[in-house]
């Protein structure tokens, strides 16, 4: 089967890969583009571990065809930290002990980033809703919700400072 070229922006970098037409974006990012931060948890669109941002909106990469990413602007947790320092969300997750096995963390961070990008001052309910498609088996969720609220506060603090 002939492979199809797909080009997109991945965490700010122009990226081009060749994929089988039926390949999902999760596998394409991991195997072809080498970004291992989105994770395979179910392949059914029910766990959220593969969450990435496409043009700023959260998407389940396991349910997205790779060829559909043509010309898209894709962000993943692998590109979340602007440099050596952590992004406020990453820092809040670390400080708040909001990860145990860490397998859901990438997807959680992307879902949270999408929320904070469109709503910098979310309520607790809004945070809960934003991550309600992301499963975590370790933490009991509250530390994750707390960390996202903490990150929002940190960003606000930086803005007002």
């Amino acid at each position, binding site marked *: 089967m002939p492979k199809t070229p797909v080009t997109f922006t991945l965490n700010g970098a122009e990226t081009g890969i060749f994929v*089988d037409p*039926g390949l999902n974006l999760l596998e394409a990012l991991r*195997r072809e583009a*080498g970004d*291992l*931060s*989105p*994770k*395979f*948890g*179910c*392949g*059914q669109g*029910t*766990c959220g*571990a593969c969450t990435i941002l496409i043009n700023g909106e959260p998407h389940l990469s396991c349910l997205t065809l790779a060829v559909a990413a043509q010309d898209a602007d894709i962000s*993943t*947790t*692998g590109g*979340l*930290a602007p440099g050596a320092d*952590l992004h406020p*969300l*990453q*820092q809040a*997750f*670390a400080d708040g*002990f909001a*990860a*145990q*096995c*860490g*397998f*859901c*963390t*990438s997807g959680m*961070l992307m879902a949270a980033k999408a929320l904070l990008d469109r709503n910098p001052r979310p309520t607790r309910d809004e945070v809960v809703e934003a991550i309600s498609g992301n*499963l*975590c*088996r*370790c933490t009991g969720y*509250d530390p994750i919700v707390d960390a996202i609220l903490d990150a929002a506060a940190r960003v606000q603090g930086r803005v007002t400072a």
Partner: protein
Amino acid sequence: MSIEFRKDLFADERDDNLNEIGKPKQRQDIGGHVRGRTAYYDDHLFDGLLHMRCLRSPHHHARIRSVDSGAAERMPGVRRVVHPSDVPNNLNTLLSLIGFGKDDEQLLSDQVVRYMGEPILAIIADTEAQARAACAAVRVDWEVLPHVLDVEEAIAPAAPSVNPAYANNTFDYGPYDHVKLRFGDAQAAFAQADHIVEAEYEMSPIEQAPIETCGAIAAPETADRFVCHTGTQALFFSLGTAAKLLNIASSRLHFIGGTVGGGFGGKVDSITEPMAVLGAILTGKPVKFQWDREEEMQVGAPRGAERWRIKDGVMADGTIIARELTGFFDAGAYTRLSSYAGTKCTGHLPGPYSIPNVAANTFCVYTNRTPATAMRGFGITGVDFAIECHMDRVAEVAGIDPISLRIKNAYRDGDMKAHRRVAKNCALVESCQVAAGKAGWILGTEDMAASSMAGSTPERASIPQTALDEDGKINERRAGRTATTSPVKGTKQLPAGTHGRSHVAVPVQRPDMQIAPERVGHDDPAARGAAHAPAPVAPPVAAPLQPAAAALPAAAATPTPPRAQPAAASQPTPPASAATPPAAQAPQLQAKPYKPDEPFQRGVNRPGASRFLSGARRR
């Protein structure tokens, strides 16, 4: 959410001024987690990675008349069809690595399937989709056999036999088809009780559901070895299991793991690792065997179902004087770890309470169900649900506050437990008091004054005369010669005070491996006493290999604790004085010469042989 650390409690038993211990240090792995950089097994990339999928039984129990994989072999991308005959040593039981149980499960089943989802063949292809498509193209002619799904139906005389290694549908515990716990005489005590409280409880199977599914990637490495990246919870269990099933020297296996996306007990079974390594051996290419979520839920072994019946004899004041328990672990079609749950659970009975008469029968039963395995709280979660619901029933019948009832019956330091070991380091009473206090659940002054460190009496500390029976010998129940599953009236008496010795930590190999007593942070008698003692006599001395013993099931070969003379003091032997090496402890295989060029298991390929205790497994 709030958390408080009650440093005021047991304060005199701890040094709270340690340098690093007790400090809220950040996790070593957190940077990787939040950057998406933590490398789980599937985050190791290999060029030309092949994908493996299994063809699975659609039936609970069926004979395989024929398999036609011809069409599948010709499908695009298919590199190899893996048949049961490709597995060099296609029979194993997980706990053979610690010498417990008979080999009873094939990696790929060649004649009969015993649960829905049992794999009979695997296909390796360039993509996962191609492997799936090829699996769908395999034609199997099944002869459906009668099945049994209920534990108590499975031990009835007419039930279909599930697993040929245990034809009676029960695991063999010594001479019996169940684990017995006998302490005092529960049957006699029931006659003295003011109330009898009986009930039955059940827990259905539960999925571990880690977000990362089970899987492994294996690839040829240098020096004729194979690397295997795995999400296992037990690296050497998986390595040893792969070496045994594939009849390959362990020195040719290089297992890498340790960073796992959740496990909860579901990643001990070591199935994906031998499958992936077999794929790499057969194709010479990197092969991934990864369960999808559907397999994780319905093929991956769950926390098995349990059924429990409890009967308590209770005095008017709430004192429980007798408890009888009958438990059934639903192992599914193969043993995996369920046999261990039976013994671990029985040692836990009757829960954290001092009850002078206890009898329990715990069964590990085979049914035509997905094999069960470990999960968080393994062997305990189900029976604790039963016991604690039952305690509420008892409280209601006796008309006593539920927490007060627990404190009244709670075990205290120095009490004798039903498995004939002394309770120590208890804290149930304090836990009850603190939880009640947080919830504003007012307890009486007597309950608030109670302590785990007081309240034991010579009577509570002693081992009573015990009624024994020989009910439930292997083969008798299925033959209809054993009437009941519950503990029966004893036919002979074991004198009071009878017990063996405690099993304690093997002392340090060399004195300078012993932490200095002042650096322990609490009182550890072993550290105090053994700090500068000469190196201990050799740890468990291996007995020479005895062919007669080797023919027995491993469980039967496990030595029983030596009995003290009935005339011996009724007080238990303090653990510290029990440092003499056990004469005939399990590990038997020591004298095997080291032959690095021979497969790992040569000479130890028999039921119960342990590859880790043998001394034969070296690199």
